[in-house]
Every structure is written in structure tokens, then in C-alpha cells.
């Protein structure tokens, strides 16, 4: 138990076309405050499901286990309550919101979270100043604040917009679900730097990735290997290089 994020025996399933499908089969994972952990694993191992279940997506049914986040029962909370409590999920495929202006969206989100945290809301001027500075630091085009949320954004722009939201919402725990996929090296570096800027004793992150490359820029404290709905191996940052050269076969064989 770390008293920050503790996942114990977590099982979850989804109803796919009338069939119950078990995806998480007993996930145990603890992340202490101030640490960045990475999850790697083959496709279909349940990495994205874990991130959705933590963020509160209703499509998944939790059948067993618990998640304690800073002493609170995370699974009992609404998605917006989890956000207010400090959890943030950077989506693997960010959702487009036609007709919703990006700056308005960001300000609504920031103020909703500030309200819930008992902080004063930001007025339009103060917010825009903060948002402009944060988007500039992520090398985002200035017009991206004026456009509709993620509509017509390239893959890389969408991912940067996720990191922008994370920066503005100031979470204590961020889940980055394949935020590196579809990014070129420069974009990858910018995104990783965006996350690194948030690193502090009061910020933890769970980074889901397929590639060692991201972890070169965003060095994790721990790496976990996930397969068939469970964490089957954990180790230090050196594990990334081992997986990159050997693949998952050895871990899968050991776990079997």
C-alpha cells in the first residue's frame, strides 16, 4: 500500500454484442506519490481498459477488486469527481467535439475542476493568458485554441491538445494512454517534455506505451508488463530496452 494509488485484484468485463468479455483479470498495481510508472504489453492485454476503468467509463463493469486513490474509493466516484480529485486520462483517440470551441471547453473544464476543489474560478482574461502560454510551450499553433475541440486536428495536434488539457487541469495523477502513438520524434520530445514539466513529488503518472522510444525521454521509475488482463512482471527502467530487443515472449512464458 502506497496511500496514493492502490489497485488490488481488479477485474472488469465489457458487454460486447451481448457477450460478457473478461478483460481485466486481477490487476495489482501500486503507484507511490511522485513516481512515473509505465505499462507495456501486447495488444489486447487490457492496458486501455485499465485506463478507462480508472477514469470511470461506464461501458465496463467492475466485477471484483478495489482502487484506492488518495484514500478514496475511486470506483464509487463519477468521472467528473475523479477529475476533481486529481485524476486525468490522456485519451488514446481524443474525442472530437464539433461546435465546441477549444478555449471555451478548456476554460469550462478548468473552472469546473477549480470549483470542485474549492478554488476561485479564472476569468476569461486570466484563463486565456495561461492557456496561451501553455499551448506555446507545447509548440501548438495559436489558432488551435479558437478551433473546435479536436475537429480537423492532425493526430499529433490531438495528442498535444491532450497534454495541454493535462497541463491546465493540474492533476496529481495522469494516465497517458499511448500518447506517443502516431507522433514523429520531434512531437514525441515536445509531448514528453510537457509531461516532464509536471513531474514533482505531488505528481504521479501511468504511461501506457508500446515503444521504448517514449521512455527515453520520459524515464519511468518502474515498468510493468501487462498480459491477459494482469500485471505479469515488474522492473526498473532498464526493462524497456530488454522488451525492445527480446519482445514479450519470455515474460509470457514465465507467467504461464
Amino acid at each position: 500500500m502506497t496511500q496514493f494509488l492502490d489497485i488490488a485484484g481488479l477485474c472488469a468485463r465489457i458487454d460486447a454484442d451481448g457477450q460478457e468479455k473478461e478483460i481485466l483479470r486481477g490487476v495489482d498495481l501500486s503507484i507511490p506519490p511522485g513516481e512515473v510508472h509505465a505499462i507495456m504489453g501486447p495488444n489486447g492485454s487490457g492496458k486501455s481498459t485499465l485506463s478507462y476503468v480508472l477514469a470511470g467509463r461506464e461501458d465496463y463493469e467492475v466485477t471484483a477488486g478495489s482502487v484506492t486513490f488518495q484514500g478514496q474509493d475511486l470506483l464509487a466516484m463519477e468521472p467528473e469527481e475523479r477529475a476533481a480529485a486529481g485524476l486525468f486520462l490522456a485519451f488514446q483517440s481524443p474525442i472530437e467535439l464539433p461546435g465546441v470551441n477549444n478555449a471555451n471547453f478548456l476554460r469550462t473544464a478548468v473552472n469546473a475542476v477549480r470549483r470542485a476543489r474549492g478554488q476561485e474560478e479564472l476569468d476569461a482574461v486570466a484563463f486565456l493568458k495561461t492557456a496561451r502560454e501553455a499551448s506555446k510551450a507545447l509548440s501548438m499553433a495559436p489558432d488551435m485554441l479558437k478551433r473546435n475541440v479536436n475537429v480537423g486536428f492532425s493526430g499529433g495536434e490531438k495528442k498535444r491538445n491532450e497534454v495541454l488539457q493535462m497541463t491546465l487541469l493540474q492533476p496529481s495523477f495522469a494516465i497517458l494512454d499511448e500518447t506517443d502513438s502516431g507522433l514523429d520524434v520531434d512531437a514525441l520530445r515536445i509531448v514528453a517534455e510537457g509531461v516532464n514539466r509536471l513531474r514533482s513529488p505531488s505528481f504521479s503518472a501511468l504511461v501506457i506505451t508500446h515503444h521504448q522510444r517514449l521512455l527515453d525521454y520520459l524515464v519511468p521509475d518502474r515498468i510493468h508488463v501487462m498480459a491477459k488482463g494482469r500485471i505479469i512482471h515488474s522492473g526498473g527502467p532498464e526493462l524497456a530496452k530488454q522488451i525492445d530487443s527480446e519482445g514479450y515472449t519470455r515474460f509470457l512464458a514465465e507467467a504461464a
Partner: protein
Amino acid sequence: MNAIIKDPSASLVPFKARLDAVTDPARRAALGALHRVGLPDRRVEAWKYTGLRFLNETAFATAPQEIDRVKARAELERLGLTLGEAASLPRLVFVNGRYAADLSVEPENVDLTFFSKMQAFGSLSSPDRDALTALNAALATDGVQLTVPAGIDAGRLLLVSLGQAADPISFHPRHSVTLENGANLSLLCVQSGEGRYLHNPVMELSVADNARLQHLTIQTEGDDAACLATLYAQIEEHGSYDSFVLGLGAALSRHEVHARLNAAHAQVHVNGAQRLQGRQLGDVTSVITHAAPDCNSRQTVRNVLDGQSRGVFQGKVLVERIAQKTDGYQMNQALLLSETAEIDAKPELEIYADDVKCSHGATVGALDDEQMFYLRSRGVPEAEARQILIHAFLAEALGLIPDELAQTIATRIMELRFPVTGEA
């Protein structure tokens, strides 16, 4: 067989005394047609989805002469029409269907008269084919008769209708707007009121060669009112009629547009949005006739329906044999916010030319789960997330209003009825 033939004039009982008093020969044809067919019931195909029971329940009297000017001014203010840029616009205000000169600021650069002074019925409407047009023709007492002379850009003009009904009344304004060659006008109609009343306007719109008429109608009538409007537009060569109706109010409303593209390269937009709740019924009906080649028609109507409300969309596009190279597009979209809300959509294409491009489509759905989750995962509470997505759905439709100030006024009036909580 007699048992199933109902007496058409039975439907006219709510107006009987007033119709019996009509003596004017100019109105006699309309009156005859009205007595022959009566007001339509749901066995009439064009009224299949929209019943007029509202009209059968009470007798509708002529509006009293005196109006409450203090209340009327307060209403103009509430609607935001006396604020900011809107305050400087010329405006023609009708209260209970009668022109109120002291509440109005008349426009310059246009020829303006009133139906009460010069009873001209125009030639575009067809009282023999449409009972509500006939009812209007029989009972009309006032209305604006406006001409924008050739080559003049008359800018924006507000045309406001306010209903003030202590007892049930009906008013039947008769408007006519003519744009001569190359003229321009942005017409903003705002309709509001309180009490039980029937607002039954007929508007003829004539757009000459190279003229451009932009026309926004904001219908925010009282909760206990009915608004049954019929518009007839004719567009000549290279002319354009760009219209949008925003339906928010009234227990029962129908906005029926007959648009005729009468010469080559004419263009018409019959766009709209409705946002209904409770037991409201809102009907957007249009008949667009392509009567010349190389014309273009566009129609997008979006509905947001909550409670037990019902939206009706009937859109007919008629392409005559001569109308080659017609380009027509029609889309009706509905967002249903409750299990008991309903949309009835009837698109109709009738095409006699062989070289045309006409498309139409319809979508019906609920709020998107993924979009809801995305917003909530950013800390936005569920109720607010719903409001944001509803607003966005309508904002995209309102984006079709070409005049930016008109768009701002429409958005503001919509937010008066449906406040957006906490949004930036």
C-alpha cells in the same frame, strides 16, 4: 357515406363571428375556399403530423385596440433588442398584429407602407390551396409592405411581433417584402408574446435579379400560443434568398415556406433549428420549386427535442422538367433528449429533369456517450456536459446564419429560454 363527410366549416367555429362579418370582395375568394375545405385535420397529407386541435378549444377574438406599451418596451428590452448594436437597428414593431409606430424606428432607403393603409394581397400566395393562408387573407388587418429599390443595400431591419393576450385572440399579419434588382436586405423577424393567442402571419418575399435577401426568424412565442406562419418566396435570376428559422416557443408552431426558384442561377437556403420541450409541437415544412435551370437550394434543419415534445420536418424539393443542372441538398437532424420525444421527418423529392444533383438525408440520435465521457473526464459535471453538447449541436446550425449580428441575436434569445450553466 354521409356519416364520414364532416362539415368543413365546423373547424371554423373559433373564428365564425369574425368570418361572417367579412364583406370585402377582395377577401371573398379566400373566404369561399376556406368554407369549402375548412381548416385541415390530420387526414390531409400535408398536416398528417401536425394537428390543429389547439384551435378548436377556444374562440379567438379580434385583439383589443389598446396595448400595454410599458410591457411591450420591457419585452423588447428583455429580448436584447434595445441593447448594443441591435439598439441602433431600424425596427418595425407589431403588437397583436397591429403596427405600433411609437415603438418603432422606421428604416431609411426603403419604400414603406402598411397593409392597413393599402390592402395589397400580392400574387405569390395561394389561398385556394392553403387554408391558413386563406384564414389570413380573410382576417388580415395590418402588415408591412416594404420595397427595397434597385441597387440599394438597406442593411438590417428588425420586424418584431409581440402578442399580448388577456383573453384568447388571433392576429393575422400580412407582410410583403420586395427587393428590386440588385437590392440587399437582412431581415430579422422576432416573435414573442404571452397569453393564449394565434399568430397567423403570411409573408410574401420577392427577390429580383441579383438581389439578396437574408431572413432570420426567431420564434420565441408564449408557451400558450400557436404560431402558424406561411411564407411565399420567389427568386429571380442570380437572386438569393438565404433564410433561417429558429423555433423555440409556442405550444404549437408551423413554419411553412414555399420557395420558387424562378430564373437561372437563383439560390435559396431554407435552414433552421428547433429546440422544444414539455409538450410543444414544432413543424418546419417547406416546398422548394426549381422552375429554372442552374439553380441551387440548400436546407439543413436541426431539432433538439426534450420531454414529450414533437418535431416535424417536411421538406419537398420539386424539380421541374426545365430545371436542368439543379443542385439540391437537404438534411434533417434530430437529437432526442428523452424517451418520449419524437421526430417525424418526411423528405420528398419530385424530379422531372434528368440532369440534376439532389441529395437528402436524415439522422436521429441521442447524445453521444463518448463525447459525454470525454467532457466528464475533464471534470465537467454531467448536466453541464449535456448542455454543452446540445448547445454545440445547435451552434453548428446557427452558424448557417450568414449575418453575424443576426447570429448573435439568435444565440442570445435561445439562451434566454435555455440558459447555459457555467459555460465560459
